[in-house]
């Protein structure tokens, strides 16, 4: 129950930080996607039940903040979430490695989906520029942030479910 209650405020605050702070931190033209990292970290936790709510609220907030057409973030985050559900049941003993792995896959999927939705909207970014100036720098930043985000959210989820178990 607590998980449901905290989801919306946490995502709203993260969205605000994403638009004001993390969008200004960039390597070349790449930026970190903290919402994506939070969805990955929360979904990877073995006890969280409402990670789909994080996916939904995160997608809604990013769709509101970003001008990416055709609900690009919905597509990206849904692909990542499904991938996590698939991997979680098979590699459940290695969450930290899964976090790094899914972050890499997520960054690539995010860039690919953005490229694709721009492409079908008659905007054609140069592929090599996209790769060197956006995708690889974004991936680097996401990898830099993924461990702290995982640490914070994993501890938080542990404490949340430990308290709920006590109750």
């Amino acid at each position, binding site marked *: 129950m607590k998980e449901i209650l905290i989801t919306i405020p946490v995502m709203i605050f993260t969205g*605000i930080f*994403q*638009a*004001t702070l*993390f*969008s*200004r931190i*960039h390597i*070349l*033209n*790449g*930026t970190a*996607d903290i*919402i994506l990292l939070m969805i990955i970290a929360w979904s990877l936790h073995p006890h969280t039940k409402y990670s789909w709510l994080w996916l939904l609220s995160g997608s809604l907030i*990013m769709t509101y*903040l*970003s*001008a*990416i057409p055709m609900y*690009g973030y919905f597509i990206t985050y849904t692909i990542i979430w499904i991938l996590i559900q698939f991997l979680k049941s098979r590699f459940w003993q290695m969450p930290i490695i899964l976090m790094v792995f899914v972050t890499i896959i997520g960054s690539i999927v995010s*860039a690919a989906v*953005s*490229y694709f939705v*721009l492409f079908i*909207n008659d*905007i054609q*970014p*140069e592929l090599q*520029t*996209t790769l060197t*100036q*956006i995708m690889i*720098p*974004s991936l680097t930043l996401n990898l830099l942030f993924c461990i702290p985000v995982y640490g914070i959210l994993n501890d938080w989820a542990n404490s949340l479910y430990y308290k709920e178990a006590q109750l």
Partner: protein
Amino acid sequence: MKKIFENWQRVVMILLIAGMILLALSGFLTQMLGNVLDPVISIQKWVAERVKIVYEFFTIPRDVTQLRAENQALQDHVSLLQTQIIQLEQDLKEADILYSLLGFARGRPEETYVAAAVIGIDPSPFLKYVLIDKGSDDGIAFNMPVVTEKGLVGRISAVTASASRVQLITDIGSMVNARVVEADVDGVIQGSVTADISIEMVTQEVELQAGQTVQTSGLGGSYPADVTIGHIINVNKLENELFQSASIQPAEDFNTLQAVLVVANFRPSNISPLE
């Protein structure tokens, strides 16, 4: 008389006291009193000094504590003042920005402006959009041009009641009809995913040079005319191509954009039925 003789001791005593007073008043006892009092005063002085030392011994630690407290209070006060200085410097910076915007607005009295603060940046690294704190409640409408005192910023691409999204001219989807002032030639300003802008579709007949000013041409009716966009920094001219292009240094630094002006009375022309 008999009584006097009976009380002769008292009489002698009174006479002695009267004599002493008379001697003191006449100054004959000063030397003698000095000799008597000097040792007493010396002793008193010695005792007073010791008492003072002992008093200070017990009271100075208390003063140190008091001084430390005062020092702490002063340090707190200094910290508060420093915070106020930083706040005032920020206010001054904001005031400078607003004065600049006001100067720009006064220079173009035919247009009405709505000043807005930049409150966010598009999280997608592919797009160059910013969020501003004014929306339809403040008279902002879709496609309105956005400028600063330095030049063109972009146009409104989405509006809510209290906020709007601005597509910057550096965005890959942005196209602005422009004119190179010195060469008197038209072209199209095109953004990119790397936030670099360039003027495209410039005829090969004219000679573009670094440093030439690029302004909006007003063609197409999407932007008002004669708003500065930037300066040419690099010309790309190939003999076998139909058009030449040039890289543009934008007049505005979009990384440090804090406040903008929305041209509220400009209604973009819808030429799509003619296309």
